[in-house]
């Protein structure tokens, strides 16, 4: 296991009165794929969103405990959320390219962070699109609307857009759930390629996907982290009966 990059310590999260995460403790290693699984409403997506503080956008959310990114608590006062989200990128369930050109989509993040020179942006756009295995498909139509791409291409565009700010960690929230098997496979291949440079944390409802691509797997149930460990062990010999029942489809 690689050194830890993200660590939750006694992390509690409340939506108003309801507690959505209960004393979560987890260490996520660098440059590996960690999958978060569990039934709907178990808190896995919520947990993913505490990492880059996307929960800040939701009214009435309260977080207790610590979420450490390279040893620093991201919920400490004075943390610059813009900086945090530059370091920790996110790809969503539904591909959400902005209604602008492919180029402008990719350049959107770098422009926020102050990249203005055209040459620099050009290089970043190409590098990001290559990183997301999309360059060859779109190199001739960078100025065309991103909404004209296919679903799978759009999702890879969103990955490229996240890569363009040169993050450290990539969070993917059910990012292949709306794609056909071919597009899903391409993105899974891409993920295994990306983990050489990035830490990837995914939320998935697809047990086979978690088993296929993740190195580590965390099972959440009712806001609790039930079991966390190597994917191979978790899927062949889980320690907790609830994990086994869930992954074998006995409930949920």
């Amino acid at each position: 296991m690689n050194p830890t990059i993200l660590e939750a310590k006694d992390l509690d999260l409340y939506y108003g009165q309801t507690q959505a995460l209960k004393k979560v403790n987890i260490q996520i290693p660098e440059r590996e794929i960690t999958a978060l699984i569990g039934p709907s409403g178990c808190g896995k997506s919520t947990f993913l969103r505490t990492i880059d503080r996307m929960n800040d956008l939701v009214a009435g959310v309260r977080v207790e405990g610590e979420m450490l990114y390279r040893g620093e608590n991201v919920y400490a006062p004075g943390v610059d959320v813009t900086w945090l989200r530059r370091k920790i990128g996110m790809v969503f369930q539904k591909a959400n390219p902005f209604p602008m050109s492919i180029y402008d989509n990719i350049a959107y993040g770098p422009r926020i962070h102050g990249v203005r020179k055209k040459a620099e942006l050009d290089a970043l756009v190409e590098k990001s699109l290559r990183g997301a295995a999309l360059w060859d498909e779109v190199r001739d139509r960078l100025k065309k609307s991103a909404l004209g791409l296919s679903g799978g291409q759009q999702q890879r565009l969103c990955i490229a857009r996240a890569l363009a700010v040169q993050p450290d960690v990539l969070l993917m929230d059910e990012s292949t759930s709306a794609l056909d098997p071919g597009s899903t496979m391409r993105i899974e291949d891409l993920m295994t390629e990306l983990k050489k440079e990035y830490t990837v944390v995914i939320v998935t409802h697809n047990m086979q996907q978690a088993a296929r691509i993740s190195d580590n797997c965390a099972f959440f149930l009712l806001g609790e982290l039930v079991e966390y460990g190597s994917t191979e062990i978790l899927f062949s010999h889980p320690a907790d009966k609830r994990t086994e029942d869930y992954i074998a489809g006995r409930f949920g």
Partner: protein
Amino acid sequence: MNRVFYDGELARLDELVQRMGAQVLAALDGAVAAGSDPDRELADRVIAGDTEIDRMEREIEQLCVTLLLRQQPVAGDLRRVSTSLKLVTDLERIGDHAADIAEIVRTLNAPLAAPLAEMLGIARAMVESALRAAADQNLEGAHATIQRDDEVDGAFCRLKDGFIRQVAAGSGDADAILDGLMIGKYAERIGDHAVNICEWVICRGTGLYHDLRIM
């Protein structure tokens, strides 16, 4: 309960394995009986019965592969299906050996010698207890069965020594000695396969094979 069909298929898998086990045991009994009280027709029936055992093996294999394909079993289910897939190979071998013994026995005129009959008896008992351990997922029973392999091995060594002494003394019929040695070897192999079955039973329970975590 979300998995009525899936659980039904898994139960059917266990049932098929047990039914094949019963068939193999019957073949073994037939071979031994045909040897103890020379009965060529019985031996022929045992030999012919081996094709049914092979067919059962293929049926189980097919069910396992279908389950892997359609249900993508994980955890306990994965261990159940994958160890069944391995276990039937050993079971089929035991059936082969029963047929092999029947092949030899049908040429014999005299009943099997007592040490041979005793050895075959131990091997058969091992197969039976291995199958019972598989049916009940009884890990202790599986371990106990594995321990009994030493008895078979010891008996085979004594048998071999006996034959060596016969050869050295120049007594005994060369054909009978060779046949006896072959049957003894088969019995010893049957014991080994029973051990293998027990190992898969343990693996299904623990994910460990020879103390190595494979699942």
